[in-house]
């Protein structure tokens, strides 16, 4: 059905999407406003700071002046008193004597104030009363003269904000206008074409033979000792342990301040019972955190590294492979399991947040052993078969959606919490896309 401009377009699922034209117009206005704001800021900076400074450095004439007096000028600002150096000088040009109070070009223009009085005094200290110094004056108005010249770092620093606004606003405006009136398919085609020339391939630009299947580089660059490839582990337990350590230190560091005050009050014979009661639950939580961290430390060091090797990579649906598992450490495991799992991941916007939901859609036990004992120096090692189900969806990754395959190692140590380690694998589409069932 033909359609022209609409505020709302068709519903997608249970979501009503807004008019793309209205959205694009809104984006364009937003970016244009940012760019204009940046241009305005730059213009003000140029007129008030950059151009006067450039003129003082390049167009002023050189002369000699005598310093009559130095003083720290003051004025009331919004956040208190502001200070600036002021140097009274006298100089003669073409037989006419001029007497002005100056410092640099910003002082001449009525600015040049700072919050630090000591800084202003130090600047005044560079000039001695009665001594002669070089002065630069404006030939068209000799009353405008400076005894300090050059470029101020403040000028360039203050440009960061307006320049950023111009770049973000201008870039966004160009991008929005480039997509104006173009269909989603045409925009996608342009982006894909541009991505081919990008120096680093992005999300979707995986191996050209298998678009949108992740490239298996990271999982095939480590040869195994028993089988062809050693798989990398995802989410090293050392990182989790470090995070718990930081949390433990931060919490107990804060609580310890209150604990010291409470203990001090008891030692001095004036117990602060209210503060003690208030601090107690926080201190108990801190002790719990320490206990949990020590437990995690023992589990991590006790379990030891898990190694998984596979006979071939990438995997293909309907094919069989060999898997090798090596578990080191010093512990007794009630159960040790090896699983092949497939998870779907979807990232979506919820208000201003980006959320990711994962759903397990396939789980196949590969190995299950009860009563495994791992002693120091002798790792538990075993091999098993890995059969990727025929007709399985291949690994897939796009901007907001993905299908991932992993080998999971799950262990249940006696008297310790369970642990789980994850090893990603890549599943390619089957030959000719047929499921070989």
């Amino acid at each position, binding site marked *: 059905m033909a359609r022209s401009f609409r505020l709302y377009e068709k519903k997608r699922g249970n979501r009503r999407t807004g008019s793309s034209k209205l959205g694009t117009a809104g984006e364009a206005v937003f970016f244009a406003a940012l760019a204009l704001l940046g241009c305005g800021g730059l213009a003000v900076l140029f007129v008030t700071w950059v151009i006067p400074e450039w003129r003082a450095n390049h167009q002023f004439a050189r002369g000699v002046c005598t310093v009559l007096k130095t003083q720290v000028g003051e004025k009331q600002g919004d956040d208190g008193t502001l200070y600036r150096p002021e140097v009274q000088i006298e100089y003669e040009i073409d037989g006419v004597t001029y007497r002005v109070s100056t410092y640099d070009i910003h002082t001449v223009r009525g600015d040049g104030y700072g919050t630090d009085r000591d800084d202003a005094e130090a600047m005044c200290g560079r000039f001695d009363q009665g001594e002669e110094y070089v002065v630069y004056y404006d030939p068209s108005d000799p009353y405008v003269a400076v005894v300090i010249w050059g470029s101020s770092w403040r000028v360039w620093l203050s440009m960061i904000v307006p320049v950023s606004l111009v770049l973000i606003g201008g870039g966004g405006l160009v991008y929005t206008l480039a997509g104006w009136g173009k269909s989603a398919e045409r925009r996608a085609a342009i982006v894909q074409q541009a991505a081919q020339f990008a120096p680093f391939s992005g999300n979707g630009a995986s191996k050209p033979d298998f678009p949108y299947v992740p490239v298996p580089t990271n999982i095939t660059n480590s040869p195994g000792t028993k089988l062809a490839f050693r798989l990398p582990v995802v989410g090293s337990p050392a990182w989790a342990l470090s995070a718990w350590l930081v949390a433990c230190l931060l919490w107990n560091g804060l609580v310890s301040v209150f604990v010291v005050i409470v203990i001090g009050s008891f030692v001095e014979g004036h117990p602060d019972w209210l503060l003690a009661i208030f601090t107690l639950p926080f201190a108990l939580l801190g002790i719990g955190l320490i206990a949990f961290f020590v437990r995690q430390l023992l589990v991590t060091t006790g379990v030891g590294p898990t190694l998984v090797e596979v006979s071939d990579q990438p995997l293909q649906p309907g094919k069989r492979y060999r898997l090798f598992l090596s578990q080191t450490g010093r512990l007794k495991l009630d159960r040790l399991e090896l699983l092949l799992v497939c998870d779907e991941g979807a990232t979506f916007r919820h208000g201003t947040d980006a959320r990711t939901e994962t759903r397990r859609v396939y789980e196949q036990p590969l190995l299950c052993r009860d009563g495994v004992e791992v002693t120091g120096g002798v790792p538990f090692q075993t091999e098993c078969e890995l059969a990727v189900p025929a007709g399985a*969806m291949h690994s897939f990754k796009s901007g907001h959606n993905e299908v991932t395959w992993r080998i999971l190692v799950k262990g249940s140590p006696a008297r310790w919490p369970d642990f789980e380690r994850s090893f990603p694998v890549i599943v390619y589409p089957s030959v000719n896309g047929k499921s070989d069932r």
Partner: protein
Amino acid sequence: MTEPSVTIRFDGNGRAYQPGETLSGEYRLDSVRREDVKAVEVSVLWHTDGKGDEDLAVHDFRRLSAEDGDWIDARSPGRFRTVLPKSPLSYQGAIVKLQWCVRVRVFLARDREVVGERPFQLGDVPATGARES
């Protein structure tokens, strides 16, 4: 008066294809006057339609524009033909769904658009139900 529309037909009436196969067919514009057509875009694309935000990628994109001097005859059917890629395959997962289709978008005078779409299956990955949350 009948509303303008687009009809898409695959050769051989096939709706399931394997990677590397050739997808071909034709599209026809109905109730559209020739002088009203400003441009026609024919895309072979996939898009996701699950819980996540929509991803869309174009495998084959052709644009005919009257402004660029292309001859667009609304009365005779237009043809499309492309060799399908090895991936991604069509997929009906629990929260990730991937759908292939041919989409024809016709830009008409007075800023109007007509869109026709015909889905097809690439590969034969069976639909998956969630086994565990």
